[in-house]
């Protein structure tokens, strides 16, 4: 059940066998670890740089890729402005697309 691209191939079955092998190795490594985890103790508390956290505090979804979004902020702000939500802009960009399409077809 593999598919070929002319250059390579993709076989989900081969991949699944390899993935199971990797998982087995990972599990074997995990078994070598220390068994000091105790349920219901302070070990279950979230650890954030040793700070005492208020009740119910955690890492929210918006925090997850904060650095990533921060690094791309200039680009994302421009893209946000591009997606203005104004129908006039939508129509304007459709005209741009139309002109490009016609020009490309005309020039061959």
């Amino acid at each position, binding site marked *: 059940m593999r598919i070929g691209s002319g250059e390579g191939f*993709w076989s*989900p079955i081969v*991949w699944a066998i390899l*993935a199971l092998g990797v998982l087995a190795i990972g599990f074997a490594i995990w078994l070598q670890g220390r068994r000091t985890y105790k349920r219901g103790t302070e070990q279950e508390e979230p650890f954030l740089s040793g700070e005492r956290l208020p009740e119910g505090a955690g890492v929210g979804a918006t925090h997850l890729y904060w650095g990533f979004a921060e690094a791309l902020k200039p680009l994302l702000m421009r893209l*946000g402005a*591009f997606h203005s939500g104004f*129908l006039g802009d939508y129509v304007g960009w459709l005209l741009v697309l*139309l002109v490009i399409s016609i020009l*490309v*077809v005309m020039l061959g």
Partner: protein
Amino acid sequence: MVHAPILAIAIPLLGAFALPILAKLNRRARDLWAVGIALVTLVFGLAVAGQVFASGKPLVYTLGAPSPTASVTEGGFPIRIVLVVDALGAFAGIIALLAGAIGLFYSLQYLAEEEGKTLGTSLLLLLWAGILGLVYTGDLFNFFVFLEITSIAACALIGYRVWESRPPEAAFKTMAMYTLGGLLVLISVGILYGEYDALNIAYLSKLITGTLLDKLALGLLLGGLLMKAGAVPAHMWAPDAYGEAPAMATIVLVANTQAAIYALLRVVFTLFGGALATPGIGWLIASLGTVTVLVAVLMAVVQRHLGRLVAYGAVSQLGYMLLAVGVGVVAAGKGFGEVALKGGIFHMINDLASVGLLFLVIGAIRRAVGSVDLLSLGGLGHTLRWESGFFLLGALALAGIPPLNGFASKFLIYESTFKASPILAAIAVLSSILLLAVVVRAFHGVFLGPKARDVGPAPWGMLVAMGVLAVIIVVFGLFPGFFIERMVSPAVQALLGGRAAYLAAVLGG
């Protein structure tokens, strides 16, 4: 089954108009009617696909005449309704059948009576009929008519929640864009009709030589269809529409957008395939596809509204399809061009399954919690267990994680695009990685974390609809070769080498 092509369109169309009358008599009878219509449409649609794939030849059905060319006068080509279903049309029909049936089944328990269930179900059937007509029709004017049917039904469904502020606004914007796109298509049809005195795709394809007017018609068609396919920079209606439409409609809207990709393939390879399918057009489509992938994924990063986040993810997948179509045009006649088209066409059904599943889960979340704002969600995995599993599966498939179905089609797209342009391939791969980050964030934000509220799971009917899509994701992912060989490869052959067969099936000889 001789009349299967027209019945697959007529039954949901007539069923949609009869449904409100039945609803006046009895609500249970209305639901049974909707299920019956869906089943009968499935039977006829699958019969059409079965006939086409089994025979390997296009299926031609002429309304009111024994053959498309039959005429009482000599010369020209009669103006009449002709349905032509080749392997590509049959494949696009299967996508539409799947989306419509699942959307309808899901809607039975998703839509509330006080929120206009009868209207929603009728519109869904109407949209379904329009899409099937769009992919089965063999002439340009009927193509325009079905395009308008889908536009009207789609916009009514997008604005379904009239008691909220955003859905009507999204519907209005989408209607404006669809109307302009439809006008471009209509002007193009008018130009070709004025030039050749014909509307039949096969007959026009035989006559088109690449005149200035032909080029103008192709440019207008490209503009209209690329907009409807959600290509940047005319994609902005899509996140509005997908984000605000009720869940059962969104999956059919995705099929509707994919019908525009089908139309793009039909126009470039069949209608203008003999004269104007130049590498320049291929590069245009491929470049727009790549920009669409990148822009949509970046916009998904900053979304707080779960529906809009997945909507941008859906737009990015349309970009992958456009990229594949573009590479297929650029490299027509070469091996990797065929691989690109296989990847792009296979990605259509994979995208429907993964994006459709995500939207159905979002519908279940909205129904349970009443909000899809990422900042107000969290910990839903404690109670919505099936939904969380389905969301994770759909998200991983959308991001192209092996061994799910999204990876199989993206693998073909990446490999073929790399041969055409390594830069475009690199952007496509990087965007997919970024999309993974986005969907992981969404999953974390909605389902993980401490339990915040008690909510009930979705009704069984909604879970079954989601389950069907989940099974497709896994099965298509584990056995891609089986489906590519039986459904995708014939569709690609219908485009590359099948133009002559398409013309011969309609025109004879």
